[in-house]
């Protein structure tokens, strides 16, 4: 387990004290307690159960606890297919996912078939939560709500005849401002949770320490909002002024909430163009960590040029000025 982002629950004899088809409706108190804790931490919850959809729908229509689940996969097919479907839809890595089932055979079977997933009993999940306390940010608390908004956004996008007109009507705003002490927990969360769009050159602890004792460095934070909701603080860049009007990018992380629609590019360009910082060049190292190739693509899209023979990339102010932000994104700099 890297960091717990998603819990996929089994239903019969796990969430429920017995079997749904046999008329069981009582929720297992241990499961209920853990589900409440997960909700409070902003961990996504989903359900994968081998039940007949019709039976499930009828029997569970009064289950309030299901409202907090971002996805339910119900059919008589193999459980592993449902788990894979949930991981694909929510775009969560198995390394950040726990499958919870009270049946040891099911746990072992899923652990073998889904590489990287943690297959736990309720007691094991409870143990993990106790030994890994977290400070819950506003963004984490609203995470299930944001996933639901994202589902609606994707559905509407699929229905739109004119994609560009749809994007322009979304009223997408990126607000860019300097880092403040109130952002510390969220920034730490961004640097920890993000894998694909994370420069990750500095070890996490060092990156956080440097943020907190940053002297004259510039740290910029970006927030994202559209008609479907407020996605909160989604981007951070830490710039360290070096010689010759140059900035070294020490940390850079952009949430996957910005994926597609050109938003990650708009966010990166917007942060580097923050009017409070002016540099002739931006320099960064890119080290492939097995997951962060999308970041390399993003850096290329923003105009960063590889410095041949090194792992460094350079972006000149002139190239940054030429980078086009999509016309459906509005960049706001409120404190300037």
């Amino acid at each position, binding site marked *: 387990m890297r960091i717990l982002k998603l819990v996929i629950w089994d239903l019969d004899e796990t969430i429920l004290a017995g079997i749904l088809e046999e008329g069981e409706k009582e929720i297992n108190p241990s499961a209920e307690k853990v589900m409440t804790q997960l909700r409070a931490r902003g961990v996504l919850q989903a359900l994968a159960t081998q039940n007949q959809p019709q039976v499930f729908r009828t029997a569970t229509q009064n289950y309030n606890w299901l409202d907090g689940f971002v996805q339910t996969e119900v059919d008589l097919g193999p459980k592993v297919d449902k788990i894979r479907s949930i991981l694909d839809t929510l775009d969560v890595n198995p390394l950040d996912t726990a499958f919870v089932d009270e049946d040891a055979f099911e746990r072992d079977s899923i652990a073998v078939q889904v590489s990287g997933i943690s297959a736990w009993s309720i007691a094991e999940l409870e143990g993990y939560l106790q030994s890994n306390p977290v400070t819950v940010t506003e963004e984490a608390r609203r995470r299930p709500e944001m996933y639901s908004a994202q589902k609606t956004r994707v559905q509407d996008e699929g229905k739109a005849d004119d994609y560009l007109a749809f994007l322009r009507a979304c009223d997408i705003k990126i607000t860019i401002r300097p880092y403040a002490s109130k952002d510390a927990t969220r920034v730490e969360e961004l640097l920890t949770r993000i894998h694909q769009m994370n420069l990750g050159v500095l070890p996490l602890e060092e990156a956080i320490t440097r943020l907190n004792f940053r002297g004259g460095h510039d740290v910029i934070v970006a927030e994202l909002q559209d008609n479907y909701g407020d996605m909160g603080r989604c981007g951070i860049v830490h710039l360290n002024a070096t010689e010759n009007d140059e900035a070294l990018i020490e940390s850079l992380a952009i949430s996957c909430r910005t994926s597609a629609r050109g938003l*990650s590019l708009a966010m990166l360009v917007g942060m580097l163009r923050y009017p409070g910082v002016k540099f002739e060049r931006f320099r960064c190292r890119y080290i492939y960590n097995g997951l962060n190739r*999308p*970041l390399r*693509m*993003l850096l*290329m*899209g923003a105009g960063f040029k*590889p410095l041949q023979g090194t792992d460094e990339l350079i972006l000149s102010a002139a190239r940054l000025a030429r980078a086009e932000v999509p016309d459906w994104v509005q960049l706001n700099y409120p404190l300037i």
Partner: protein
Amino acid sequence: MDSISEAQTVDNQKLMNTVIHLIAETLGQTRVRIKPTTQLLSGQKIFDSYRLMEFILRMEDTFGIPIPDEDLDSDIFDTPRTVVRYLLSRLEKDA
């Protein structure tokens, strides 16, 4: 036009068609008509980071050449035409 340059023109056109086809495949649906001069990274933002990565993986598979990090340059991936130019130089070098 002599027969050698005529054959080259046909090959280049084939390569261009393949590249445009790969772009369309990556996009999944033809929301935008792709031309040799369509800007892939600016303007209408044909590619976001994830799509661009997918396109590069498709190119590596199709042409059997790895694309190293040092070639990930916006001048190379600016338009289908610049991509074809890059591919020609790579294929020639590797031949």
